[in-house]
């Protein structure tokens, strides 16, 4: 296992669209171990997406189980993830391991269902809410070249009714 270098904005590689994983092989498993080690080595990091370490593949890891008193699904390895349902909305504060020393408010769906493959290629479905739903949406955005900076809302928008298209 290796701790990989995390790319920092404005690195152009963070703006790429990542490609689906097609081979669920030993190379992927090695990479997943490195990605997880990198996330756990980063202070406060509860998620990491492959493009953040320069690998433009649709792979993210989320694990919010270390936060006190919130619902969570444990460690989630989400490969080729798709959000299949979104419900409600919530504004919350986000930061990013690829954007040092800046945090801001972002509106996200309050509850989501996400469908993905796991490390072995098996199909998984998760229901996420609140902080975990926020983390999953933040990481999946990375796969489409989006950062939370692209979704910032001002404090005056905290109570805005409708954010999603």
């Amino acid at each position, binding site marked *: 296992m290796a701790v990989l270098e995390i790319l920092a904005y404005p690195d152009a590689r963070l703006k790429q669209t990542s490609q689906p994983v097609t081979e669920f092989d030993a190379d992927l498993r090695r990479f997943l171990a490195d990605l997880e080690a990198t996330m756990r080595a*980063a202070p*406060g*990091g*509860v*998620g*990491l*997406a492959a493009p953040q370490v320069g690998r433009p593949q649709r792979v993210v890891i*989320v694990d*919010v189980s270390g*936060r006190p008193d919130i619902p969570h699904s444990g460690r989630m390895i989400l490969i080729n993830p798709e959000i299949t349902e979104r419900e409600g909305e919530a504004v*919350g*504060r*986000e*930061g*990013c*391991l690829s954007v*040092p*020393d*800046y*945090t801001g408010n972002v509106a996200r769906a309050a509850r989501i269902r996400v469908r993905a493959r796991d490390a072995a290629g098996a199909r998984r479905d998760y229901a996420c809410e609140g*902080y975990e739903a*926020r*983390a999953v949406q*933040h*990481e999946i955005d990375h796969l489409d070249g989006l950062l939370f900076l692209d979704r910032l809302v001002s*404090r005056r928008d*905290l109570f805005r009714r409708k954010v999603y298209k």
Partner: protein
Amino acid sequence: MKRWHMLTVVGRDQPGIVAALTETLYRGGANLGEASMVRLGGNFTIMLMVEADADAPGLRRLLEPVTRRLQLHAHIDAIEGRLHEHVEPNVRVVVHGADRPGIVAQVTAALAANGLNILDLESDVGGTADRPIYIMTIDGYTRDGIAALERALEPLRRTGIEARLTPIDTMVG
């Protein structure tokens, strides 16, 4: 040698204040840092970090044609830059009620006595001239936890001030 200044500007609000000031600073070789600019009542206010070779009198001379034309009051202080040292807020306080003297003083005194460091405060007077309401939003950092702040605000709630505390749990991914 580059040095940091805090430029404070106040004037009657009108279109073009920010554009004129920042264009002049840019042409004068200055670099801008963090800023807060907002219309308060009918006035436009600016707090702007400016990094320049010029000292305070030099910066004032640079800005003088603009401040004179737009009738702005400018004030300049030497400061340390200290960028890249953001403190993350961990609590938001939203206060509202019928406007009356003393709300800010009472709320912030109670919060300060219980360890809140205010990082960002904005407030508005809404409602109508004969029935004004006051709304204040504070983002702050508390070392002692929200429960202490809740207890501190309880007596104020009994006087008709609505105060809501929400933890800010920043998600970093």
